[in-house]
């Protein structure tokens, strides 16, 4: 009985950790906190994408808090050794499965539509964002999500559905304090 439980535990553990994205890192400049009007550049690197059950990588989605504006792509991912096609910057795209994506880069496979790319990395993307003018401490979170066949519905053999979003920044807009003196009367 103990042996069965041990085997079950190993299986559950393997499933939970079977993510396809490995060796993620980032650089963000300048470092936070951020004030209205400030422009920030982000570089994100995905060291390796290992498509379990032949799940190929499809897209890099940029998740931004409401305090950001003027998202501008500055560097698309490479496709070294990958499928025929190209990475396309898109603000919004709905896959045939109904899954909504964007903004970010998605791979358009010109040989086999909906397959993504067989490239395994490394992938580097970069973009600029600006803190919107605001009077409230709006959310400035930044994260990256990697989508593959499993998520977009391009391949029925799931295996990379548990890749968590990669967090780059958590914080809110830093607002200058407005300190008014007491009212004086001549």
């Amino acid at each position, binding site marked *: 009985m103990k042996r069965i439980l041990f085997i079950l535990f190993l299986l559950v553990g393997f499933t939970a950790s079977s993510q396809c994205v490995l060796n993620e890192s980032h650089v963000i400049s300048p470092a936070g906190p951020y004030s209205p009007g400030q422009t920030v550049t982000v570089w994100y690197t995905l060291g390796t994408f290992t498509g379990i059950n032949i799940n190929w990588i499809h897209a890099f989605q940029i998740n931004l808090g409401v305090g950001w504006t003027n998202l501008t792509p500055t560097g698309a991912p490479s496709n070294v050794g990958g499928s025929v096609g190209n990475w396309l910057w898109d603000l919004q795209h709905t896959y045939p499965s109904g899954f909504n994506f964007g903004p970010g880069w998605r791979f358009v496979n010109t040989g086999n539509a909906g397959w993504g790319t067989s490239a395994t990395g490394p992938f580097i993307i970069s973009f600029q964002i600006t803190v919107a003018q605001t009077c409230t401490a709006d959310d400035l979170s930044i994260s990256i999500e990697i989508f593959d066949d499993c998520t977009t519905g391009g391949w029925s053999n799931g295996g990379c559905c548990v890749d968590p979003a990669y967090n780059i920044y958590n914080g809110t807009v830093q*607002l200058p304090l*407005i300190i*008014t003196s007491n*009212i004086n*009367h001549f």
Partner: protein
Amino acid sequence: MKKFITILFVCFGLASYGQTTINPDTVCANAVGEQYFVTNTPTSTYNWTITGGSGVLQTGQGTNSITVDWGGVSGLYPNAVEVIESNASGCPGAPILLDVFVLNLTGNAIGPFCAGDPTTALVGNPAGGTWSGTGVVANAFQPSTVGVGNYVLTYSMGGCNTTINVTVNNGPVTGPIQHF
């Protein structure tokens, strides 16, 4: 000499900058051109609101200094002066408030008197002020010490004044006793 002038300048500047109005502020009834201000931040704008006391903002809206004309009804008006500073981005700060007490002084009429009449106490409202003028001693009028005529007596409190007019007439002149 230069050092002396510098010291004077610094002292005056500090005194002006650091002036603090005690809350509630007191103004005289029907006062005009009363100036209110906060420390200026050049990139900020200031939105002032006058509430109660029949106050009317006359000049300076948008700046750190305004003038206000007040009405004549005595009383305490909570939050009568309010200012909200907004920074260069248009973001507002917390409202700053000042209560205002409108002080309407009145003096009870007295007289007319005859020369030689006894001393009469002077009554002002609200109580607690000070009377001044010809024939006034210790907040009382002494007809016997002034000549015949009209006099203006002033009642003062908290920087406000009101006046009353008092008349002293000739007393009756009684001739010698006659014997028919």
